[in-house]
């Protein structure tokens, strides 16, 4: 868990901060605030009550120290804008308009600093007068202009040191040899101030830097350190210590090693109706909110879920009956049979286990298939401060390592938890010695799919062929060989000493979506009305393509590979209608032409006992529009028949299947209007109850399956726009 924090930002709001310098398009303040906002919003995003922040402005037009200091003499042009507290989104919204350059250059940074120290002091001192455990921090952001009264500076520095306040001074266009910046023709006053501040920072063990450096580092995502929580504390054993004399038992603990860091998830809300103009507006609100500029200002109401429970009505098949919660108990489905398990029997389906990590056997690492592990990993380390465990585990780790073996073990993390099979892998690094466990699949977890071999080709009769268009020839093998070797990354990067090192190490890659979402949420907090979103930071997309310089080097090999590969993209057209017009229907294994067998009939009648096949065959047999229309009309009649004779929902599935096939086939023939007019009529009849009874449920099924109008995007011959198609689903 993170330490409590108290951070005060001291912002220079003097007139000079409104100037644009050194060719920048932003004012000094706007530029510097990029850094400040990023820092503040990052802290707000943690949602921690114990991370307090405050903002003090100096060289402000007004003076207001909010009584933080009894005697506000000498604190003119210093203003506490936000006292120390947990900042929330509304605070950010309030703060934003207040951070504007003032009309004055009067005001002293050291006065502001004294105010800040006092603020921290007040907020972090316990009732007994003792300082509480806090991380104290003051960040000064200034352009270095204005008069400084330095007589108290030593006392202030001493106080900062005594209170263990971390002091950061960031300056606009401050000289920084390490970062490599020097401002030409620097104003003498600024130069003097820079020296003073640098000296001051040194005296209180603080940091002093040019703000360009801080801003350039904003792009580098911050990674979160999570406190390790053990998922198992128990023994690692070899043998059964209950029943045998000589067994090995080591006290161990298990901690996460990899754990996918998930981006924050969005929750569901609904627009408050009382704010958007009465309940009547709610149905149209989807359109209005999309363009709404006032985001996240308490206009959204939380959403609750309400559940309704239903069972099949056995007296009237195809219908459902609502049931009351009190008649419900826990159970399981065995196939379609409900098995009731009363509360007292709840444990009967659970396998009785006790916590353990039992060694089963060992496998040589070269015989282990790397694709088998199926989970994230965990460290297995000796119990803290247990020297015997440390020594015993160390010998096991080293023995595994030296013999090149992994261990297979049975893991039960808690009583009556399902046993897992884990692989234990030794890991030895300069300052780390542990086992790493990863879950392995059980028999049921492997799907037995078969695929044809890749290095030979089998004919239908089972003959083996080694030369085939699906097999690489020697030229392609050679080209692939050279390309793969040319694109090697294992020594492509350079380390700090300029030595070759691995490119794209784990520690260089940042989770793109995680940081993108975090970044955009923070950005939105301070840019609520901006019409377009910023692009993702470059550091997140760095590894989305091969490094250009390596590609340059490997271009001859790539060209050779392309030539040898001779890959051709299949034109999109051929997939759809082309196939149909060629009458190139799928043939059985023997290659028999079934249509020829039937004498290539020109007209196929729709057979309602064989509806879908006969419909498909009718369409395949003809190119004549009239024949297509007749087939579609027959199909439509059958669909309506299914629905109107359906007892409850019994016929809906068949109707739905027929609708799907009709939609697909007609779309493929590029006659979408035939389907569209059918589905329009069907919808009307369903909703108006013209198909013998209340058939609204059928409409919901069509809607849910998205079997509505065929739109232009799907079929260019359609006159239905995307909006019209969407509206078709919506309107009742």
């Amino acid at each position, binding site marked *: 868990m993170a330490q409590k924090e108290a951070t005060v930002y001291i912002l220079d709001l003097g007139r000079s901060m409104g100037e644009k310098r050194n060719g920048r398009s932003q004012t000094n303040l706007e530029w510097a605030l990029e850094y400040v906002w990023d820092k503040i919003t990052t802290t707000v995003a943690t949602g921690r009550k114990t991370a307090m922040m405050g903002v003090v402005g100096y060289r402000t037009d007004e003076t207001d120290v909010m009584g933080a200091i009894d005697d506000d003499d000498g604190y003119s042009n210093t203003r506490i804008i936000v006292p120390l507290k947990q900042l929330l989104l509304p605070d950010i919204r309030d703060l934003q308009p207040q951070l504007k350059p003032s009309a004055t250059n009067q005001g002293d940074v050291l006065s502001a600093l004294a105010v800040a120290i006092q603020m921290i002091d007040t907020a972090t001192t316990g009732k007994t007068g003792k300082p509480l455990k806090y991380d104290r921090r003051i960040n000064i952001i200034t352009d270095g202009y204005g008069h400084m009264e330095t007589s108290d500076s030593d006392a202030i520095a001493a106080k900062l040191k005594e209170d263990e306040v971390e002091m950061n001074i960031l300056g606009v266009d401050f000289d920084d040899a390490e970062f490599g910046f020097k401002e030409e023709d620097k104003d003498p006053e600024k130069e003097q101030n820079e020296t003073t501040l640098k000296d001051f920072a040194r005296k209180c063990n603080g940091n002093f830097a040019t703000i360009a450096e801080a801003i350039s580092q904003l792009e580098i995502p911050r990674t979160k350190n999570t406190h390790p929580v053990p998922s198992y504390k128990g023994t690692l054993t070899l043998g059964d210590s209950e029943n045998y004399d000589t067994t090995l038992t080591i006290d161990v603990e298990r901690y996460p090693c990899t754990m996918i860091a998930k981006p924050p998830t969005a929750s569901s809300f609904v627009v408050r109706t009382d704010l958007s103009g009465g309940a009547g507006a709610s149905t149209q609100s989807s359109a209005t909110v999309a363009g709404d500029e006032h985001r996240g200002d308490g206009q959204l109401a939380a959403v609750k879920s309400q559940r309704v429970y239903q069972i099949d009505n056995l007296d009237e098949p195809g219908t459902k009956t609502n049931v009351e919660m009190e008649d419900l108990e826990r159970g399981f489905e065995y196939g379609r049979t409900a098995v009731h398990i009363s509360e007292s029997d709840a444990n009967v389906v659970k396998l009785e286990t006790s916590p353990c990590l039992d060694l089963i056997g060992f496998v040589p690492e070269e015989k282990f*298939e790397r694709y088998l592990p199926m989970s994230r990993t965990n460290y297995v380390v000796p119990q803290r401060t247990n020297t015997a465990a440390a*020594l015993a585990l160390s010998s096991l780790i080293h023995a595994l390592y030296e*013999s090149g073996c992994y261990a297979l073990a049975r893991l039960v993390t808690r009583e009556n938890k399902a046993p897992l099979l884990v692989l234990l892998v030794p890991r030895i690094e300069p300052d780390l010695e542990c086992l790493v466990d990863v879950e392995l699949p059980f028999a049921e977890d492997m799907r037995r799919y078969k695929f044809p071999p890749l290095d030979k080709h089998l004919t239908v009769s089972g003959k083996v062929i080694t030369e085939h268009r699906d097999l690489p020839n020697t030229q392609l093998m050679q080209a692939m060989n050279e390309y793969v070797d040319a694109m090697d990354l294992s020594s492509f990067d350079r380390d700090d000493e300029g030595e070759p090192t691995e490119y794209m190490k784990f520690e260089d890659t940042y989770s793109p979506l995680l940081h993108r979402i975090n970044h955009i949420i923070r950005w939105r907090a301070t840019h609520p009305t901006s019409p377009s979103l910023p692009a993702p930071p470059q550091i997140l997309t760095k590894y989305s393509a091969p490094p250009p310089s390596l590609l340059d080097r490997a271009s001859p090999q790539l060209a050779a590979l392309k030539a040898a590969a001779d890959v051709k993209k299949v034109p999109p057209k051929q997939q759809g209608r082309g196939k149909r017009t060629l009458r190139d229907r799928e043939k059985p294994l023997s290659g028999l032409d079934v249509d020829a067998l039937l004498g290539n009939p020109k007209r196929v009648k729709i057979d309602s006992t064989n509806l879908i096949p006969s419909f498909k065959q009718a369409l395949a047999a003809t190119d004549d529009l009239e024949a297509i229309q007749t087939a579609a009309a027959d199909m439509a009649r059958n669909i309506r028949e299914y629905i109107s004779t359906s007892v409850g929902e019994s016929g809906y599935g068949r109707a739905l299947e027929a609708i799907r096939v009709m939609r697909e086939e007609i779309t493929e023939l590029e006659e979408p209007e035939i389907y569209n007019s059918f589905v329009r009529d069907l919808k009307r009849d369903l909703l108006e109850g013209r198909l013998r009874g209340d058939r609204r449920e059928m409409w919901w099924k069509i809607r849910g399956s998205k079997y509505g109008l065929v739109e232009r995007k799907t079929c260019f011959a359609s006159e239905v726009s995307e909006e019209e198609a969407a509206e078709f689903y919506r309107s009742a």
Partner: protein
Amino acid sequence: MADLAHDNRPGDDEGEEEEVDDASYKTIKDAVLFAIDVSPSMLQRPPPSDDKKADRDSPTSAALKCAYQLMQQRIISNPTDMMGILLFGTEKTHLADGDNTFPHCYLLSDLDVPSANDVKQLRSLVENEEEAAALLRPADEPTSIAAVLFCAIQIFTTKAPNFSSRRLFLVTDNDNPAKIKQDKDTAITRARDLYDLGCTIDLFPISRPGHGFDRSKFYDDLVYPSSPSDPDAPASLPSATKVAKSGDGISLLQQLISSINSKATPRRALFSLPFEIGPGLRIGVKGFIIIKRQEHVKSCYVWVGGEKVQIVASSTSHLADDTARVVEKTELRKAYKFGGDTITFTPEEFTQIRQCFGDPVIRIIGFKPISSLPIWANTGKATFIYPSESDYVGSTRVFSALQQKLINSKKMAVAWFIARRNAAPVITAIIPGEEKYDEDGEQIMPPGLWLIPLPFVDDIRQCPEQADNIKTTEELTDIMRKVIEQLQLPKGVYNPSKYPNPDLQWFYRILQAMALEEEVPEKADDKTIPKYKQIDKRTRGYLAQFGQEFDEEHKRQTRGKLKSSAAPPKKRAATSSAPIEDSKPSKRIKTEPQANGNGGGMTDEDMAALSDRGNISKQSVGALKEFLKARKQPVAGKKIELIERVQQYLESKGL
């Protein structure tokens, strides 16, 4: 269809995004209809034999046993999928609703999600010979295969409409059931109807002694190479399903089970993506989930208000929290919680945020030795990819060249991978998978490439620091190595098929027993429990030797340290149990984990010291509560509140 629904709702699966790959498997529904031939030759039992492995089953009864096994297995692995069993060639005719259109077709269990009753009925047929003999009586005249196919069409259209996968498993030993051309033509037409309906025929041929099964005589005109419901999947191997025959050492039943198992789950591609080997060089691949944790069904509500216990379906509607009015799904807005309020974006912006990293692709960034892929860096299961020619002609040969090169050079590719629109981009290793066969030449591992997701820096956790600098010695390591040598797994290989999931098996055994109202078994068969006897036999000597060596070494290494160590020696003795137990089970007293152990007895001074060192947050919630409770302080609230309360307490004591 599942895909269609997907594309139409961009950004809708926000948040549930990671689940999608598994969910899409659930949305596809599969219906399997077993059609089993009942003819005099199918009912013929093999001659009796002394060989234990020899066949005892007639082909028909082997097929029924197979169906019985598959039914039980599918209740576990595909609980929402349907299955039915149709016998043909029987003297009796029986179809649902007393339909007699199809003579000599006997619908043993109708196509549906199996019920406990179906399992019971099938089992009694498999186990009760008299009952079986009464039913399995062949008709005088042969049944027309066309009628069987048409019967299947009717069953599929009425019972499993709009299923994404419908398969007819045909078990027969008759390779030429149509004697005259007209019969054959009708059968071919019906097979085509079945194909047009979107159903597949999977043929499980059985050869008789002295009579092989020649597919080309008849069935090659009926069976289609690709599945209409699954154009994504690569064409199946023509020889994938072997002709099962009896008297081969391996029983007919086992051969059938093995063939049918490989088809137990319909294969369906998880994604179809361009695979960019280099700029301007793309091929097509499809992704498949081959390894996936099989979980048991979640508990559900059942209705106990009537005579019969019934499964309850629930539906959810949304209510606005402020006015309690019902909210349509289209009205819902997604927003992020931030600083006590919400930050929201328009649906278009949500789409932009998720899709700003480009289109779905697998793009190779470069290559590394396979040793750059340590096991500790695993973050999840691997995905199998296999080439597809449907978008790029020539994909297979390029893919094959890459796979062979990676095998030969022990290299892997690293790639940027976006599985589908809205999916989070990941960096993945691509390693080659070699084709593997079992003793019978059956493929047990397909050839292809595996995508193994790699961790980002954000996903890697630090290992808790080890306080003691205690290291093994060469002697100890050497003894331990001998132990390792003694306990190698058979053939040195981890073979998943040897380890059924004990929890899953137990769950379904109990559930089945309860569903069928049978005796509940007492003891589970757990293959994951180590073979203790063997371990003892093989390692006893080495472990004893290790024990002696260990005690001396431990003393030597901890001698100076105990005094200088911060922790009092007394406690150390309590927590360090001797790892080697030389005496008969003096049942070890469970040592409490450290944090809990000293929590209750912690004095104010201890806690204050912890607090001053900044270590108070490392205490467990339990320890904090215990501390507070002992001092009559409230123990409610989050950890941070507990810590604050402890600190306030300490302050009040002036500590």
